[in-house]
């Protein structure tokens, strides 16, 4: 079947411009020629069916070829056997689900274990359920430990009242020669210490402050 020569020979196309229009090669028709051919083809419903069938077959074959090549590739690279996988003999015993009473699916007892936490502040073992209240008391927060809190508050108020608050605070620390934690433990000594600071403030002399330093 010879292609009908392009009736719209003047269509500006790169391919048609390159080759002489007189010698239209049937193997390389222009785009317009293709469109025209196609239009004529699908005017007839029968050929349209043919075309659809043909296209379907071609594309189906393409798809099949794709699968073949994929499989072939897998086989050549040795991945086909990897897809099959290895039969696991001991899978049953290793991953069996345990159905005994009082045991969970891994075969571990469901009985409650006593959980103990170590308090980071005082290093004592505390039951998990009691840990939060203990920590609250231990670290001096909340209402229950209001003793410590109020004492701290009082200290602050007392020192802030004076003009040289920072110096008296340092002074008290210097007197006991310890940290705040130690103060917490001994309440009475702290009281005494506070009194002494009060006295020094009452004397109100800078000299006194200087002495203690």
């Amino acid at each position, binding site marked *: 079947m010879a292609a009908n020569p392009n009736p719209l020979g003047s269509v500006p196309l790169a391919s048609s411009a390159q080759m002489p229009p007189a010698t239209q090669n049937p193997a390389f028709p222009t785009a317009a020629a293709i469109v025209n051919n196609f239009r004529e083809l699908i005017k007839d419903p029968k*050929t349209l069916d043919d075309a659809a069938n043909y296209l379907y077959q071609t*594309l189906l074959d393409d798809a099949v070829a794709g699968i*073949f090549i994929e499989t072939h590739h897998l086989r050549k690279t040795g991945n086909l056997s990897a897809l099959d996988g290895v039969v696991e003999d001991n899978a049953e015993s290793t991953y069996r689900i345990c159905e005994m009473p009082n045991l969970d699916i891994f075969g571990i007892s469901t009985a409650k274990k006593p959980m103990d936490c170590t308090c980071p502040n005082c290093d004592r073992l505390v039951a998990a359920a009691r840990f939060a209240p203990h920590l609250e008391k231990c670290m001096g927060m909340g209402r229950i430990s209001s003793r410590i809190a109020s004492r701290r508050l009082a200290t602050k108020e007392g020192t802030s009242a004076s003009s040289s608050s920072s110096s008296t605070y340092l002074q008290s620390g210097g007197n006991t020669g310890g940290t705040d934690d130690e103060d917490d433990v001994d309440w009475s000594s702290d009281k005494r210490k506070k009194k002494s600071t009060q006295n020094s403030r009452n004397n109100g002399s800078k000299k006194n402050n200087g002495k203690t330093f």
Partner: protein
Amino acid sequence: MTVSNVVDQYTVLTGDRSKIKDLLCNRLIECGWRDEVRLLCRNILLEKGGNNSITVEQLITEVTPKARTLVPDAVKMDLLMKIRTILAENDADI
């Protein structure tokens, strides 16, 4: 010029070919055809597996007819109809 030539050229020109191909592939994957064919290939390879004698060409000639018959009728009809409408609507567009 044959029907196949014209259709090939036209569909490539307008870009419908890839569109239809995508449609077809998706539809075939959905209906499980792809897995069936893959299984078929695997079985044939396992039968003749020991020696590496079988080539891709041999495999293609052997399995292609089976693969064609494996496509469900409903899917085939559906696809043919869709291809036809795509071709026809192109005619209307231009």
